[in-house]
Structures are given as C-alpha cells and as structure tokens.
C-alpha cells in the first residue's frame, strides 16, 4: 500500500461548467497532436512564407522612408525584382496603375499592404492549412471511434456540442497559429518599420480583416475535416477524403476555367476572322500583355486579387471559394457575382459538416 494512500474520500466541491469541458478537450487534443514530430515541423515551416512577405513589407517601407517610391514604381512597371522575391514588384505595379509619377504614399501603402496580406493568406497559408489540418483532423474523431474513446466522453457530463466544439478548437487554434498570427505579425512589422507614425491608425482595419478572413478560412475547413473524421474509424480513409476533396475540386475548377478560356479564345478568333483582321493568334495575344506581373508570379497575382477577371467557377472548389470570399473581406473584389456563389459553397460546407457531425458523433452509442 502506498505511503500516501488515504483511501477513498468523498468530493463535494463546485464543478466547472461546459465551457471548461470544451477547453479541457481542446488542450488535451493539442498536447497529443503536438507530440507528432511532423506537425511540429509543418507548423514551423508554415511560418517561413511570412519571412518572405516580411521582406516585401520592409522593401516597400524602406523605399517610402528613403523617398524613392517613384523609382520603385518605375522599377515595378518594368518588372524588376524589388524585394529579392518578386512579390512587391508584382503588387506595386498594379497598385500604381501604370503611373509611377503621381504616387500617393498613403493610398499606395494601403493597397500594397492589403494585396500582400491577401496574397499571403491565400497562396502559401491556405495550402499549408490544408496540409496541417489533413495531418491532425483525421485522427481526432476517427481514432476516438476506433479506440472506443467516445465512451470516455459520453459516459461523462459531456454533450455532443461540447465534444465537437472541443475538437474544433484544437484545429481552429492550429489554423489560426499558421494563418492569423503570422498575418497580424506582418501588419505589426509593417507598422514598426514604417516611417509614418500614423500608419497604425491608417491601416487599423487590416488586422480586423485578417482576423475575419482567418475565421472564414478556418471554420468551414475545420468542420469539413472533422466531418470526414467522424465518418470512419480508419484515419487513413478520412485523410484520403480530405486531400481528395481539395485536389479533385481544384482539378475540376482548373478544367472548367480552362474550358472557359478555350471557348473565349475561339470566340475571339471567330470575331477576328469576321473582321478579317491580320492579328496574332489569340493565345499569343493573351500572353502578350504588357503588364509584367502577368508574366511574373502569376500565382501571386491571382492570389492577391490582381487578376480582375471574374472567376465564375470559384464556388466549385473550396480553395477558390475561400479566396473569393477573402478578397471580398479585404475589399479587393466586392462584385456579388464573385463572392456570393463562393459564400454559398462555404455555407453549404459548414452546415453540411455540422449535420454530419450531429449524426455521426453519438452514432456508436445508438448502434
């Protein structure tokens, strides 16, 4: 018998409420997930794009400080690499609208920062989010089903809502750590390196937009990942479902968009033939855009919302739907045709996932 064995004793103190239960599930889940070496590597890696974007912020503010924004704009127009990684030139060329002589620092800064933040959240972070969530989420419920750990929860004062919320908070925190936190840190760094003392007041809404955009990014994706996890006791099947959704929808979007481009090229060719204009082939005309950002870093241009063409198939792919809604949140593309179908997709994802979770989470107990 252990020396400190005091036998069985009664306990009558005050119990914590359901919110504490959510937090307990979340903290324990994060601790267990963090034991994965791959997750630790991925989260640290997920911060690396922030350093590249920090270089863009720094180069821009340095140019403002040294009064050479006009020269920087000229460089951007001819497609020079301004920050060592090419992002600033891409964004700045668009922000200056082809006229580097009349540079309004405040409005240019706002546009450049907004586009850089949107590009940061869209292109590297949203993809890394898929990887991080794909690593953690499939185990969260499916492993509970396999190890019958659901009995640990539902034989105690834990409801379905607390369980799902607890599991969601695990993913939400991870997602926010790799999206919201570095984006807010980028804004903060911009404020710190800026020569203007009022820059924080001028751009106060950007961190708010970052937070809203991060939540829009996090909530549907987290719920979708948990729904997949709840559908099977096999973690690998849940992982496959998650990644297959992203990849298959991406491919479907690319195929439909390409079909649109091909159709539009044919229409242009037909129109040209009617007018009997001796022109370059349409595909070459499309590539002969004078804007350097169109040929350089096309992915960034699209992510930053510089490509003004309406993406009418964005709703079909979660990645592109998230991008369309985030662009609206950042005030870059507020055309209803751009964000409304995408919002419908995200709402469908969210409520569909909630319905699956409500059905599946206590299903083993009812079987």
């Amino acid at each position: 018998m252990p020396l400190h064995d005091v036998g069985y004793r009664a306990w009558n103190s005050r119990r914590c409420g359901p919110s504490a239960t959510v937090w307990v599930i979340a903290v324990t889940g994060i601790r267990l997930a963090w034991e994965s070496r791959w997750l630790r590597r991925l989260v640290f890696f997920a911060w690396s794009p922030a350093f590249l974007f920090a270089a863009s912020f720094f180069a821009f503010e340095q140019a403002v400080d040294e009064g050479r924004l006009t020269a920087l704009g000229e460089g951007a127009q001819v497609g020079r690499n301004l920050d060592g990684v090419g992002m600033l030139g891409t964004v700045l060329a668009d922000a200056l609208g082809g006229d580097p002589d009349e540079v309004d620092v405040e409005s240019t800064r706002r546009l450049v920062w907004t586009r850089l933040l949107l590009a940061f959240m869209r292109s590297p972070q949203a993809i890394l989010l898929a990887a991080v969530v794909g690593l953690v989420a499939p185990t969260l419920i499916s492993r509970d089903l396999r190890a019958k750990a659901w009995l640990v929860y539902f034989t105690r004062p834990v409801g379905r809502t607390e369980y799902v919320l607890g599991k969601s908070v695990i993913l939400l925190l991870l997602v926010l750590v790799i999206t919201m936190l570095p984006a807010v840190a980028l804004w903060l760094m911009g404020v710190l390196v800026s020569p203007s003392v009022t820059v924080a007041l001028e751009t106060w809404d950007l961190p708010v937009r970052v937070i809203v955009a991060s939540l829009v990014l996090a909530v549907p994706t987290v719920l979708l990942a948990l729904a997949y996890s709840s559908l099977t006791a096999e973690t690998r099947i849940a992982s496959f479902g998650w990644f297959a959704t992203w990849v298959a929808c991406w491919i479907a979007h690319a195929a439909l968009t390409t079909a649109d481009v091909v159709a539009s090229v044919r229409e242009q060719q037909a129109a040209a033939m009617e007018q009997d204009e001796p022109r370059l082939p349409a595909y070459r005309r499309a590539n002969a855009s004078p804007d350097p950002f169109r040929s350089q870093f096309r992915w960034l241009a699209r992510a930053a919302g510089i490509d003004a063409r309406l993406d009418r198939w964005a709703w079909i792919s979660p990645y592109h739907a998230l991008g369309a809604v985030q662009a609206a949140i950042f005030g870059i593309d507020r055309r209803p045709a751009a964000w409304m179908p995408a919002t419908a997709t995200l709402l469908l994802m969210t409520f569909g996932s909630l319905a699956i979770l409500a059905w599946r989470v206590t299903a083993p107990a009812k079987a």
Partner: protein
Amino acid sequence: MTAPTVPIPVRLTNVVKRYGRRTVLDGVSLEVTPGITGLVGPNGAGKSTLVRAILGLVQLAGGEARVFGHDPYRHPRRVREAVGVVPEDECSVPGLSGVEMVRYAARLSGLPATEALRRAHEVLDWCDAGQERYRPVETLSVGTRQKVSFAAAIVHDPAMVILDEPTNGLDPIERRAMLGRLTTLARKHGKTIFVSTHVLPDVQAICDRVIVLARGRVRLAGSIADLTRPARPEHHLTGTGPLDRLAEALTSDGLQARVTASETGPLIELASPRPDQLSAIWSAAQQNGVAIRSFAPASRPLEQVFVETLRQAEQPNAAAPGDGLREPAGGIR
C-alpha cells in the same frame, strides 16, 4: 419535520427500446436502490442497452426512465454527473498515461485542474495502481487497465457506479480486490453499485439484489437470499457415516427426511425442523454413528436459478414482465 425524500437512484417504468424492427428492451420495469445490484443475462439480453438507457445515450421508444429523479435523455448532464461508468469495452484516449487518463476523466466530469490531479492520484493509490500509472494506457496489462478504468469512473465521487463485466481478465487476487473495493464503496461510502456481469459467483459474493434480463425483459428480480431459497423451506445435513440409517431414524422420530445426492456427495434433506426437534437430530446422529459436518438452511445455487429462469424464458409462452415469474413483494429493493 419530515426527512427530505431521497430520489431512487434508478427507476425504469415499462421501458421499450427498438433498433429498427428489433425490440431490445420490451417493457422493462425495475428499480435500483442503494447497495449492490447485479444485472445478469445471456448475451443479447439487452444489458448494454439498459445501461445506455440509464445514461441517456439512447432515446426510448416508450416508457419512462428516471435516474436520481432526472430524465436521462433530456438531462444527461445531471445524470452523468451523478454516475460513474466502467464500460466492458476497453476504452481510452490513445497517448495518455494512466494517471493522465484518470485526470482527464476528472476534468471532463467538472473537477478543477489541480483537484483533478490530486484526486486522480488518490483513487489510483486506492486502486493499488502503483507506478504503472505513468505508462501509456494502451501499453498497460489488462488488470491495470481495468484499475485505471475503475479509477476514472469513481474519480469524481459519483453517487452511483455502473460496471460492465468489472472482473473480466483479472487474476483471482485482483478479482477479490476489485470485489472488495465495490463492497467498500457500497457499505462504507453509501454508493449505489450496479454490476452487469456473466460471472454468477461474483454476483452471489457481493450483490444484495439481482436482476435477470433475457430477451429484453426482466425475468427475475429480487434479493439474493430470496432467490436462492428453495420453494419449500428445508435444511441440508451433511456428514460422514451411514446417512441412510440416520434418515430412517429421523423419519421414525416424526421428521421428514430423505437422502439425496448432490455435487459434493450425499446429504439429507430435512423439512425445516422446529427448535425443539434439534436435540433429537443430534442424538439420532450420535446413535447411528454419523459425524455431522454441516447443518444449514438449504439454498439453491444462483447458477441453477439463472439456468431455470432462462429455460422458462426460452419457452414460447414465457411469462411477460410483471407476470411474476418470481418477484418478491416490494419489487427488487
């Protein structure tokens, strides 16, 4: 001034539960009162569903369930705060050590962080879990896992503990220790213990009452003493020597006695004698050269009661619940 009414831990009235077309619980009515109650029944009798109904995990198709006065389906939180469960299936959160598992269970039950850790160590000490508690649960032996599971069920000091096959996989020493803990909880701490098991000797050893469930119906319910008492009151006498001669002598003295065979050897069945006849029995034994080894009220083994009950339940016109296969007055209190 009248004493406050303490709600009965579990009261089920005509509970019906169906999975599709299959009726798993068919008008189950029972009460579980403080003390130790055993729930026995063959596989597929509906024991696990009954436990789930008590915990509010399943919605009933009919009838009423009350646990400490609360509807478990509508107010599961209140019910589960008052109940601790040791499931039959090994269930744990992969990656947690034994003590972390118990602490996690305590936290989920609403204990504050520091208190949860203190209680976890305290109940693990009481369960004699030793240093094994620091190993991941999935690497523990069956016995230690059972201790951890039991500790997790009682860490929040529930008023009632439900155990599904609590002695499964335990060696004889551990089994005795587990039964001892259950007895201590019931007798010393006033807990209501509800044990679902196939091990009838365990039920006979610790339970005050037993419920036999078969084909979704309560077939038998009552105290162990009542259920194992034979239909006619009688005593059994065992001894060495010519038992048949002793039986003849007792019969000639006006006692109804006959020699019969039992699993442990021949014995004399005696219609319960009056106190003034006892000295005649001792004298007759001495005169006929029989050394009496035991002389006690007859009782039927619980296993025999169980088998007979199931045999009756198997018959096509088996009595419906409440038809009184054998239900002593006062239900199964």
